[in-house]
């Protein structure tokens, strides 16, 4: 059964590309508004930590155009929009725990009126001491959970007996998702207490369950739908519920459709960001630069609530080894609660912070031992014999050594490193730096039960196919990839497959589209559903034409079998007339993974996604300004499902990572108010920041693993961390400017100010 033209593996354009460029792609705010719809806005706290003594909302209510105002006491069910811990109220009750927290929601005839009215509340607070950074949280012992320890071998002993020790600190900043489409939901009341919610969310099932809790209603009364998001990046995984729940509450109370679209400032102040980390390390190394033992301390600012912080901090620990064999290791991870907006999922999910730390260690060792940092990295790579991670999983089919070797050649790393060193000697005012860093990223949710997915597939009598699955489309190309998979099962062109919006009443109990696993999980579920239908169709042909299964070929829109050929549409019609079901669900659960969180041991990942990047940068040593000059990336997506989509994810992820490490700085004032709450003050990379020399290639993987569709690998998150090479190169340039006086630390983001401060450090 060989299919002639395959869809899988082709660089197909995004299924919505045409709709995107013509402005026809509909986002939640673009949908025709039901008559009488209410527009909502949140009233927000202006204190980071305070008791609410009184809340007078009469001026809000009386503002012309306002229909209603609701707050905590109006909630019939549970006042909670947290993913699990129960510590994220929809509206503050008697205490506010971060600046910007929702206090109430205003419903009015227009968004402008609602926003204006929301500012008229008169609230009196009794200020409480606010914890605004990790130091203060440590001092107050304000923690989300116990310090978690992951260890293997005996790090302490290795350090005590070693002749070379390197130690240091590294801080990495928070990051705003800055999805271009802000958070939004529309809730439409229906009959019999039903509510339909159209939400820009990566996790419709959680939005559904959360609304059911808030309204004290069964989940089957709530339907949540999402066709597409204007970007997510993890920011619409748990955070979308706050918005959707407020809209649902208003729709339920008033019986009118309600739309809540956060203005950009509200969005940035009220929704979570990447965790800021403060880390330190102490490593014992041998003459070769090999790590004999290492202790790492990771402390994160989780903000005011639990959200997904335990799993995110776990993932930081899982990636503190990156590509390196660390036989004697102790990782201590502290999770602090502060009075800031709760930190949440963001592309990489803690992985980037852990990886930054070990890559810093590599640079430090190289500096200490006077070696090329690349050599140190290579000497520490996992290998055939040294392949056990700190959490006990074996690293199989490790692509990195080979991939790095190829990248060293294609990027001309060695010659360029020498040239740069020479160039720097002749320059008083500018310095350059270059660095190669690898990425090994574990694929699967580390919370094992989340690794499941469902799909629902219908074939209609005319042979057209409607595809639905639990994954959501946020630009990452999930829909086209899954459609390619399904099209191949039926030998159809991908255009025959219609993607329908993700909807909780089609596929229930889904996991978030997150952890890069969207196409692994949903692709497999859809593949299973499609094969169920194909099996039925094949049986039909076998029964009518007396042939065997392997004599039937589905290709080019036709089905061929000994003695016959028909179009897919004819076969569908035949199946219908023969009373064969043309609809199926598909369900997939990732096999063979497990994890014991008590001991931090197990096999949490199905496989690892790998890549590496070389970045070259330049700094102005008088002002601390910097520029990325050239980037070379080699990244593996296994046997790619869609190389065009994958390249897009790689480059986009890289630039986003570059922003995290350079120009994107989240600032709070001393009252805990976010001061970088709009693009005027929060600077993500622009087109002008993309280096002209930017070479991206997919690694031609020889491994048949993993057990995924067509041996493809996930691509959403891993490339983000390729940008660590930028930060590492910046540090190298500064170190050169300082003539390697001592080891130069550099925190992230490396803004001009932070770079200059290192350049001028005594």
């Amino acid at each position, binding site marked *: 059964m060989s299919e002639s033209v395959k869809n899988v593996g082709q660089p197909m354009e995004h299924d919505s590309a045409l709709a995107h460029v013509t*402005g026809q792609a509909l986002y939640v705010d673009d949908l025709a508004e039901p008559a009488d719809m209410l527009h909502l806005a949140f009233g927000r706290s202006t204190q980071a930590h305070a008791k609410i003594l009184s809340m007078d909302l009469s001026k809000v209510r009386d503002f012309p155009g306002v229909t209603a105002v609701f707050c905590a006491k109006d909630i019939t069910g549970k006042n909670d929009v947290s993913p699990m811990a129960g510590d994220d109220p929809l509206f503050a009750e008697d205490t506010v725990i971060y600046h910007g927290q929702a206090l109430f929601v205003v419903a009015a005839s227009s968004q402008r009126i609602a926003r204006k009215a929301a500012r008229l509340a008169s609230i009196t607070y009794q200020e409480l001491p606010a914890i605004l950074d990790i130091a203060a949280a440590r001092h107050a012992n304000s923690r989300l959970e116990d310090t978690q320890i992951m260890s293997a071998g005996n790090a302490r002993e290795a350090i005590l007996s070693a002749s070379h020790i390197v130690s240091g600190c590294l801080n990495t900043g928070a990051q705003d998702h800055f999805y271009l489409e802000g958070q939004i939901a529309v809730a439409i009341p229906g009959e019999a207490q039903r509510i339909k919610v159209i939400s820009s969310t990566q996790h419709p099932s959680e939005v559904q369950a959360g609304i059911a809790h808030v309204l004290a209603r069964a989940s089957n009364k709530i339907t949540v739908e999402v066709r597409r998001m204007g970007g997510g990046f993890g920011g619409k995984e748990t955070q979308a519920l706050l918005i959707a729940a407020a809209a649902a509450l208003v729709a339920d109370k008033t019986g009118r459709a309600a739309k809540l679209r956060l203005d950009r400032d509200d969005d940035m102040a009220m929704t979570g960001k990447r965790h800021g980390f403060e880390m330190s390390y102490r490593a014992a190394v041998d003459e070769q630069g090999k790590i004999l033992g290492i202790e790492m301390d990771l402390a994160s600012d989780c903000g005011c609530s639990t959200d997904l912080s335990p799993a995110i901090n776990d993932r930081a620990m899982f990636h503190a080894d990156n590509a390196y064999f660390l036989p004697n290791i102790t990782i201590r991870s502290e999770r602090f609660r502060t009075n800031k907006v709760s930190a949440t999922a963001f592309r990489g999910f803690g992985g980037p912070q852990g990886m930054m730390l070990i890559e810093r260690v590599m640079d430090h060792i190289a500096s200490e031992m006077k070696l090329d940092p690349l050599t140190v990295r290579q000497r520490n790579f996992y290998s055939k014999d040294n392949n056990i991670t700190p959490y006990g999983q074996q690293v199989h089919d490790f692509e990195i050594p080979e991939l790095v070797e190829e990248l060293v050649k294609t990027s001309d790393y060695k010659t360029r490193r020498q040239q740069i060193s020479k160039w720097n000697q002749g320059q008083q005012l500018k310095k350059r730096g270059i660095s190669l860093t690898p990425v090994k990223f574990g694929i699967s949710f580390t919370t094992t039960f989340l690794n499941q997915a469902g799909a629902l597939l219908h074939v209609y009598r005319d042979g057209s196919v409607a595809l639905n699955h639990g994954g959501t489309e946020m630009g990452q190309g999930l829909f086209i990839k899954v459609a390619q998979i399904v099209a191949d099962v039926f030998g159809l062109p991908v255009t025959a497959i219609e993607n329908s919006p993700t909807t909780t009443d089609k596929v229930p109990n889904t996991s978030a589209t997150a952890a890069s696993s969207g196409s692994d999980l949903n692709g497999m579920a859809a593949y299973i559903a499609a094969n169920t239908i194909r099996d039925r169709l094949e049986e039909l042909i076998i029964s009518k034409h007396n042939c065997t299964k392997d004599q039937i070929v589905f290709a080019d829109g036709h089905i061929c079998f000994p003695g016959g050929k028909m179009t897919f549409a004819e076969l569908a019609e035949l199946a219908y007339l023969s009373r064969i079901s043309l609809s199926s669900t598909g369900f997939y659960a990732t096999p063979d993974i497990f994890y014991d969180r008590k001991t931090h041991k197990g096999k949490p990942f199905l496989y690892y996604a790998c890549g590496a990047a070389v970045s070259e940068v330049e700094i*102005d040593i008088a002002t601390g300004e910097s520029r990325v000059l050239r980037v070379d990336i080699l990244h593996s997506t296994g046997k790619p499902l869609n190389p065009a989509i994958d390249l897009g994810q790689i480059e986009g992820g890289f630039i986003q990572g570059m922003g995290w490490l350079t120009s994107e700085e989240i600032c709070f004032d001393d009252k805990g108010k976010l001061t970088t709450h709009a693009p005027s003050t929060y600077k993500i*990379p622009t087109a002008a920041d993309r280096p002209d020399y930017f070479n991206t290639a997919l690694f031609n993987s020889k491994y048949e693993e993993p057990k995924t569709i067509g041996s493809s690998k996930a691509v959403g998150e891993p490339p983000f961390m390729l940008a660590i090479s930028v930060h590492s190169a910046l540090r190298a340039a500064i170190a050169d400017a300082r003539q390697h006086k001592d080891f130069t630390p550099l925190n992230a983001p490396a803004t001009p100010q932070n770079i200059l401060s290192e350049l001028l450090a005594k």
Partner: protein
Amino acid sequence: MVEDNSIRFLLNGQIVCVTPDDPHMSLLQYIREQAALCGTKEGCAEGDCGACTLVVGKIIDGEIKYRALNACILLLAQIHGCEVITVEGLQGEDGALHPVQQALVEFHGSQCGFCTPGFVMSLYAHYRNQLPNDRQSLKIALAGNLCRCTGYGPIIAAGQAMYGYPKPVEPDSLKILQTITGTPQQDERLFAPTTETDLQELLQKYPDAVLWAGGTDAGLWLSKHLQDISSIILLGNIPELDFIRDDESGLHIGATIRYADVIELCADKWPAMGEVMRRIGSTQIRNSGTIGGNIANGSPIGDMAPMLITMDARLNLASAEGIREILLENYFLEYGKQDLRPGEYIHSIFIPKPARDIIFHAWKISKRFDQDISAVLGAFSYERKKGRINNLRIAYGGMAAIPRRAFLAEQALEGTCADDTSIAQACQALIRDFTPLDDMRASAKYREQVAKALLNKAFQDNPVSLATDKYQYE
């Protein structure tokens, strides 16, 4: 066409005629909420993301000039008599994609797609003006459009390919546009005078009215701060303020001249100024924002003032009483307070012709090169006679509550050979000259360090700047 007070313009080829309930309605509100053209998006409502970019054609010297603008901070009334093209208006009658759309599809230029209509329109403006599509030009054209998904590579590639497709026939709208007359004047909430005399009368009658040039500052008061403004006076319809005169005495710039109108002229005369101007806002902002507005707002971090102060620029302030000329540096009194009397407005800026061998430097330091507000802007002008520094003027933005000269530093250097000692003394003097701002853009300490660094640069033979130096990969 009837002479009424409606706002009239061409929208994707159709004449529309609107009298909005709220005369301060933004063009974006109109496009999305009333015209139901939802391709144009709102990503920030403050001119910073480009999701709301559309193209506006305006008759200038008998032909239509097309420019990309941000609809979120543009008043509907500002586009009276213009042609507005949105993403929905690009496809041919047969539905064929415009080359920029086709290229974006083929080069995988969209992922989530939310930024895409804005990019389409920025590229379309570029295409319509047949501007060079090398990487550098495209980056300048696109730096005002944020994309969080693609990393920009495919979008730039699409721009590089767009001229390779068959060129569509664009309808000529000149004749129709010429039929639109009258002004968009509404009630007392919005005036659109067409002569300075009318403007002066209005200002006498409504001294608290807000003057509205490009609206790239004032637009945010409505879109972000949700202010109620009692009345707005549009300056964009007064030809007497819309002029550039380059003569023997120097350069005269009318108050409503946009950056885009003079950037090339300034860059020719003073390359350093051209470079800073190129980094003010984005293409969309430079297409709308005026130099008059940049000065009038009195901002301590506005980019033009420090440069113009070192060039000894004058302001012509006009009112019903007549015109008075003042030194620009005397215009800024204290934070939020300028030497502008009731009934007065900025008529024009005058930059006297500098001495022939003047050395002029200006550097803008910000977290991000493009589309960012300065942490510090340093401007320097001097002559070197027999090695000695003469007529030195140094001014900074971001170093005080107003853009200001560094008098003590100037004193320390004037007449010296700008040797290391004098420069060090000048750097010391800078500390006494200023109390820099301290905020999320930069700490006071960094501002001070950078101010000194720029002062050093100003006397180097070949100062470097990462913002301008082109990277030649050897």
